[in-house]
């Protein structure tokens, strides 16, 4: 799919859309763990953003607006490929990930292991986690992007990090040493 930017759009808007591509792709990949799909989702997101550019009132809200469109694109994708799945349950559904935890455990690459564990999280938790950690969104922004209450954002984030902590820190070799290191680490 190609995207053609129509002439006549304000240059600032166009430049800002282009500038968001990298972070949108990173976010999309963290949600689906499929590079080709992530690229498609970003393309679709930018297309929709162009089609609905008049909906954006303030350029300062561009990031959150694009994240919201991206979340809708992902839901639409799963709606197409999982027509029989109850979308209300999708947020709590653990989606398949190419790399199994067993494979990840044998991998010496920490990045692969973390991605595998993030991939095992229910989609709703994964989206909240990555919006906060990768995009630096506030809880209020995440609530608006995903159209969920802020309490849900906090609980999902809490559960996601607790799960990752259990799987990545508690089970990891050398966790005892890290535990000791934590004790002397200074928290700002």
């Amino acid at each position, binding site marked *: 799919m190609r995207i053609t930017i129509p002439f006549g759009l304000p240059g600032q808007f166009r430049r800002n859309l282009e500038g968001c591509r990298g972070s949108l792709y990173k976010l999309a990949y963290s949600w689906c763990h499929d590079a080709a799909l992530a690229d498609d989702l970003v393309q679709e997101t930018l297309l929709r953003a162009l089609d609905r550019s008049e909906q954006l009132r303030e350029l300062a809200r561009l990031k959150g607006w694009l994240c919201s469109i991206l979340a809708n694109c992902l839901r639409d994708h799963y709606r197409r490929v999982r027509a029989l799945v109850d979308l209300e349950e999708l947020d709590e559904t653990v989606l398949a990930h190419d790399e199994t935890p067993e494979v990840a455990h044998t991998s010496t690459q920490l990045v692969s292991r973390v991605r595998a564990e993030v991939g095992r999280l229910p989609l709703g938790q994964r989206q909240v986690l*990555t919006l906060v950690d990768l995009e630096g969104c506030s809880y209020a922004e995440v609530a608006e992007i995903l159209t969920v209450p802020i309490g849900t954002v906090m609980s999902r984030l809490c559960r996601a990090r607790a799960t990752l902590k259990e799987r990545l820190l508690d089970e990891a070799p050398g966790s005892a040493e890290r535990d000791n290191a934590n004790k002397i680490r200074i928290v700002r």
Partner: protein
Amino acid sequence: MKTEHDVSREMQNAFVDGELDRSDWGRIAEQLGRDESLRAEVCEIRTVKDLVRGAYAAPPQALLAPTHPNEATTGREFSRPGGSLFTRTFGARKVRPWSNDSS
């Protein structure tokens, strides 16, 4: 590890994410100074946050290939990671391992 403080996990996460107002932040910061278990829990949250950020610092890029010649390109296009110049010139199409499209 025994938990002796009354700071919930949600509040600990909010502390790490900078989501607390001044009074709540100050209350937790004060407890951090004297509660070892709270300090360890907050450090673990911070560590997990750093791990997640590091895991996606450089995500793999999708493979790109030229578009079909019939897909005429007009006007300016968005650049795409891993193929911006190519994409601007020719457009782009993903290569999928299951794709057998030679048309």
